[in-house]
């Protein structure tokens, strides 16, 4: 709990380059908006409903009761099995991302309350190496699924990721299989799995646990897909259609259950859980 408070002061708004001031330019509609107004609006543009990229802890914060999130296994660290070294050694890259985000890797998981309902929750923060999935991220998603199955809790994941973590090579790819297998077991145990997709969710994360939700919910206008847009454009040598890989596009093609704004996410998730997995009444 202390851990959560420690991180709460952090502003991890990396996508939007906020000038040192009181005003913010919206990425989508380019309007200049009073910063406090955006913050009060859960980092959603009041003019165009654009959902700014926010940190995982902020996302969890909007979804669960204040202070109820208890993070587990924060001390999991990657071993850098490939001793990967490009311009910067991977080990150094990890260190600088730790400093930047105050997280040990891109994922968190733990338990929390939504209203009074205990849930298991896991997620990926885009600001840590593009939310890429290496061994630690895969392990945390897997442990979250196992914990939910053991405690008979619904599992909620919130993703924002560029995909696999290249620097961990095949160890990274194998996380997709590991996490998907754990999700399969969770479902067989009778627990509900809700996957919340936020901007952006791609590659190995989409092609594993994120698209395996019993219920899949996306934030409005989020970019979600398997292949990145540049790769597709280079392959097919065509312009991509408007709205391609946006939440609304996925909805139209039957790939997700619903689109929910940040403001209604908590109540949507809670209602679904109370329908599918009502808490046993204590006698």
């Amino acid at each position, binding site marked *: 709990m202390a851990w959560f408070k420690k991180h709460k002061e952090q502003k991890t708004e990396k996508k939007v380059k906020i000038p040192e001031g009181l005003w913010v330019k919206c990425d989508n509609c380019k309007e200049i908006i009073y910063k406090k107004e955006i913050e009060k609006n859960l980092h959603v543009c009041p003019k165009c409903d654009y959902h700014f990229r926010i940190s995982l802890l902020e996302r969890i914060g909007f979804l669960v009761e204040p202070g109820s999130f208890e993070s587990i296994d924060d001390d999991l660290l990657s071993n*850098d099995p490939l001793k990967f070294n490009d311009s910067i050694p991977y080990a150094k890259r990890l260190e600088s991302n730790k400093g930047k985000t105050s997280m040990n890797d891109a994922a968190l998981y733990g338990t929390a309350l939504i209203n009074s309902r205990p849930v298991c929750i896991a997620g990926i923060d885009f600001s840590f190496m593009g939310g890429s999935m290496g061994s630690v991220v895969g392990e945390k998603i897997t442990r979250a699924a196992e914990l939910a199955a053991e405690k008979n809790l619904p599992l909620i994941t919130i993703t924002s990721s560029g995909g696999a973590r290249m620097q961990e090579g095949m160890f990274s790819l194998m996380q997709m299989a590991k996490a998907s297998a754990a*999700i399969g077991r969770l479902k067989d145990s009778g627990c509900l799995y809700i996957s919340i997709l936020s901007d952006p969710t791609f590659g190995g994360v989409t092609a594993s646990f994120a698209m395996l939700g019993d219920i899949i919910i996306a934030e409005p206008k989020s970019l979600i897909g398997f292949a990145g847009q540049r790769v597709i454009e280079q392959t097919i040598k065509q312009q991509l259609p408007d709205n391609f890989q946006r939440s609304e596009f996925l909805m139209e093609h039957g790939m997700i259950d619903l689109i929910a704004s940040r403001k209604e996410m908590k109540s949507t998730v809670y209602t679904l859980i109370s329908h599918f997995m009502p808490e046993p009444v204590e006698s």
Partner: protein
Amino acid sequence: MNYYLDFEKPLEELERKIEDLKKLSDTSEINIDSEIKKLEKKADELRSNIFADLTPWQKTLIARHPERPYTIDYINMMVDEFVELHGDRRFADDAAIVGGIGKLRGIPVVIIGHQKGRGTKERIQRNFGQPNPEGYRKALRLMKLAERFKKPIVTFIDTPGAYPGIGAEERGQAEAIAINLQEMSKLNTPIISVVIGEGGSGGALALSVADRLFMLEHSVYSVISPEGCAAILWKRDGAAVGAAEYEKAASALKITAQDLKSFKIIDDIIPEPLGGAHRNPKLTAENISEYIVKAIETIGCKSCAKLIDERYKRLRKMGSITQSETSE
């Protein structure tokens, strides 16, 4: 005429010479047999030297060699009474993945694999071995059929990756792969996977969640292609990226059968004839059959619950992490 890769060029010269001499000895009176034998021995030595010391990038090129046997070639050599089965029953039949049932050394198996295609026309028809969602859905349909009739599943991995296209995204490429990963982890029948060429990321993984994962000696399996990795790392400000960068990326990514065996990500390496699988496809097919049959015999006697449990444990071990003891 054989197709030679760049690093095989010294070999090419020598072998051309041998061919010429052979033609000469057929037509002339002079006995040059001993000369030919000498050169052939030299060629063998040269080939051994070249192949003893291949770089990961060179292995990648062998794995993608245009003459390398593909899934259908191996099926033709290994499987009797094969019947190919088509379609995902939802949208289309994806020619980039083939599947069917037949007998491998007398054992009925369902066999599924990526198929690249030979020659321009077939390559296009097979989409260069890059499946669309319907390919993965066809594969899963056949795997469920195998489960119902208690047939072991054999998969051959050989793809640059799942196809990055508009239709693929519209029809749920990510979901198709994800479902295969989830379902394969709990199929009630043994699954043996063999990387025969190129294991390209999620598109390869979607057919290789298995009880035994083998790789041919000169095959590769990677989370991203060396070219893709090089482009991300070094293609800044429009700088050109070429063979030197691909060499570096291929080495850094640790994609060879030998690397992955040392990481315990794969179970074993299936030997190839000197010069690569395409130099002696029959022998390669024999080797593959040997490993598959041995694996089926070892796994076959297990109860279903134990089989699935052990498969989960295999997956569960994947990763390279430490947990410090100073946790709160």
